[in-house]
């Protein structure tokens, strides 16, 4: 388990100064959306009774709803989840099914637009969610989704 501190002031290509809060240091990395929940804002999800207004909603499609777990970075709020021991890695909400997480590292061959080749390192955060979910249309659907 590793965690990274997101210090945007040190990024090679930092966001515009106006977007950067130097007081904001959040745990974030595609590689390491791991156990530490420091910096997570509003990481709660309703439990208990099925909300009847969900069934009544008339959203336009059967796409899943994003997880209600939210993290705010630099003033921007994302709906995302970490992974780690004991942590529900689902990136969709109102979900019941199988999940998988694979953080794999390795190397490979890159071919650049000019035809040159080089060896690059890769790091992945790949997940699947396969089961039933309440879609944005309020209906229960069956499906498989990848967090890529």
């Amino acid at each position, binding site marked *: 388990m590793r965690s990274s501190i997101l210090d945007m002031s040190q990024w090679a290509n930092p966001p515009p100064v106006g977007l950067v809060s130097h007081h904001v240091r959040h745990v974030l990395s595609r590689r390491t959306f791991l156990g530490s929940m420091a910096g997570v804002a509003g990481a709660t*999800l309703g439990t208990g009774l099925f909300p009847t207004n969900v069934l009544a909603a008339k959203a336009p499609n059967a796409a899943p709803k994003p997880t209600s777990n939210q993290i705010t970075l630099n003033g921007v709020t994302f709906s995302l989840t970490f992974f780690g021991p004991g942590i529900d890695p689902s990136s969709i909400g109102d979900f019941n099914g199988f999940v998988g997480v694979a953080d*794999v590292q390795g190397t490979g061959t890159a071919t650049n637009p000019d035809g040159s080749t080089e060896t690059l390192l890769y790091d992945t955060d790949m997940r699947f969610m396969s089961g039933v979910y309440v879609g944005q249309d309020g209906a229960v659907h069956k499906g498989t989704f*990848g967090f890529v």
Partner: protein
Amino acid sequence: MDLYRGQYDLTNFSTQVHDFDPGISPYPGGLFWTVPIPAIGPVELGTGRARMRATNLAMKDYFDIPSALFRFESPVSVGASASFDIHWHGPVSSRGRVTTAGSSGQLVMSQATMTWSAHNDFGFSFVSNPSGTKSAFAQLGHVKNGVFV
């Protein structure tokens, strides 16, 4: 799926050169890097085995994680496509319950290997080396959240 030149910099991303992901829709609060994929094979929690694969999945290349999150580069991204094949093959090293508030279920720690390839509309392409991969974290489970808890 992230590419780094020379060495990993998982803190400041200074060495990252490509970031393939399907985007956030709608941005910024919508589905995060999540898209439909073909049905997966059987998930065997007892042995820690499963398989996830996709071919020519529509992606974007945001070049690095900061750009993917805050979209400040120009162009923000370019069109891309990726294929991958991931095997969870065990053995199961530990089991535990989901402790996330609002969720329930069981999780098992496993091992994974992966091969993948991607290309972008600028003419860049990448093919992973099937050997020498490291399973940094691999997990399978069955979870419930939201209205299903």
